[in-house]
């Protein structure tokens, strides 16, 4: 009887701690990058942000925008991360901002935010927590973004 009770107790404890370990989560992590990274692609389209430790290829993004990934046509890639950890990526000539979620060895599209039909001339990101501000410094257009799309202050209020 005692042995059976002990076995049951051990089983419950193992189950409890095992479950607890699997669901160990730290909340309120701030992933925000205070200043955007401006990255220059190499001949293969690879961009590397040494300060924040992220590297990827821009050609898939270029293909999304221009349907062409035969050669690198992007001069500078703009990259910023919001507090939730989503990457906001765009470049000169892109008409959209790509919100990417980090996954195991990859970036997964969370949202493609279309901001300009003609394409951005000189885009730049600013962190305005909890939002990301997109500025086209040539046209002085400003967009407030989050991972879901363009944030409309009028609608919000």
């Amino acid at each position, binding site marked *: 009887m005692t042995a059976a009770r002990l076995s049951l107790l051990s089983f419950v404890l193992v189950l409890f701690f095992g479950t607890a370990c699997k669901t160990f989560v730290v909340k309120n992590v701030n992933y925000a990058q*205070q*200043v955007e990274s401006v990255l220059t692609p190499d001949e293969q389209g690879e961009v590397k942000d040494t300060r924040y430790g992220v590297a990827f290829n821009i050609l898939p993004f270029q293909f999304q925008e221009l349907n062409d990934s035969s050669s690198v046509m992007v001069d500078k890639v703009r990259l910023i991360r919001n507090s939730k950890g989503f990457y906001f990526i765009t470049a000169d000539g892109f008409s959209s901002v790509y919100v990417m979620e980090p996954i195991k060895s990859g970036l997964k599209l969370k949202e493609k935010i279309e901001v300009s039909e003609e394409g951005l001339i000189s885009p730049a990101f*600013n962190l305005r927590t909890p939002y990301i501000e997109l*500025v086209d410094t040539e046209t002085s257009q400003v967009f407030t973004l989050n991972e879901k799309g363009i944030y409309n202050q009028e609608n919000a209020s």
Partner: protein
Amino acid sequence: MKKLSTTLAVFLALFSIQVSFAQQSDFQIKEAFEAKHETLSLAIEDAQSVDTIDSLLLAIDNFQDEYNEHQEMLDYALYPESYESKIADLRSKARTAEHKLLVIENQSEKLSILTDELNQYKSELALLTQRSDSLRIAISNSQESEENLSRLVRNYRQSVEQRDQFIFDMVDSLFITYKQLAPESIDELSKQNETGTLASGDNPLETIELILEENVETLKAEANTLNTEDYLRIYALHHKVEEVWNSIGDDLIAIYGGKNKNKWNAQIENNLKEWKASASLSMWKSLDNYLENKDVDLGAFDSNSSFFKSLDSFVSKARDQSEGEILNNTTYEDYKTFREFWSTKVLNDWNQYLVEAEVLTTNQIATIDNKVDDWEDKSKPLSTTFIILFGIAVLAVIGFIVLLVKQN
């Protein structure tokens, strides 16, 4: 005008960056901050005056005011540096440059006074050289009586002596002034002079070169009008100039050599060597002739060490030879001849130049002097009175002994 244009350029550069971004991103603010920091930093490095640095310190204040509101973002963006550290870096650079420029302005003032002095020296030296040259030419062309010729030679020797003394003083003045220059300012002064701010003719290297050339020429043109003392003085003068050149020559070349540093160095070194060879040859030859005329045979010598060895050996031998010669007068006569040369020339007329040129050191002179005194003691014959008195005393003793024998 140059100061104004530098300051204006800095302000224009800062203003142009400021107005070019109507709608800025944080990244652009960071880039603009770094560009302005770089512009100010370069302006500080290029600053040529304390006034410019003062203007730049004001520009740094404005720069700080302009970016204060972005401090937090900049601290993050500039990591591992920070907004404060970048501003502090500019201020520190400006203060260092200001200190350096203050030293240089002070040194430049000193140099300019020295250059004026040097120009005065140069005119004076030219007059003295001209006078000596005229006298030398007058002597060589002279058909005048012996009395007049002797007067001309005397005047010429005095003129050369005056000129040499003048160079001694001038070299001293050069040495003292340049030794007061702060070592860290030499590079800066050199840079200033490389930019061509030094007027032609103000270069002390030219004056030194002139002195060397004229001295070499004087010795070449000289035709037995100078005496041993004159040659010793010229030899001592060379020694002095060489000593000063070894001490400050590198600095003078660094400051005034411009783009021809190696050329100046080689030219002056060569002239110094030529002057030394010629001064040394003339001096040893003249000294040898003088001793020969005085019947003092020291043997061969042609350097400071061989001259001392000859003197030492001559006096030692003479002293040893005199030992035991109580009644002989010959060695004492030799002693007297040498003593006259030693006392009047070595210890008196030539002493200053012999010591200055290190022909003989004070210790060497003292060593020989002791031996000469010893030589006197050993060579001095007994006086006649002493011999007579001694003879009388001997006779008296003999007489006394004879008397005692007879009484017994």
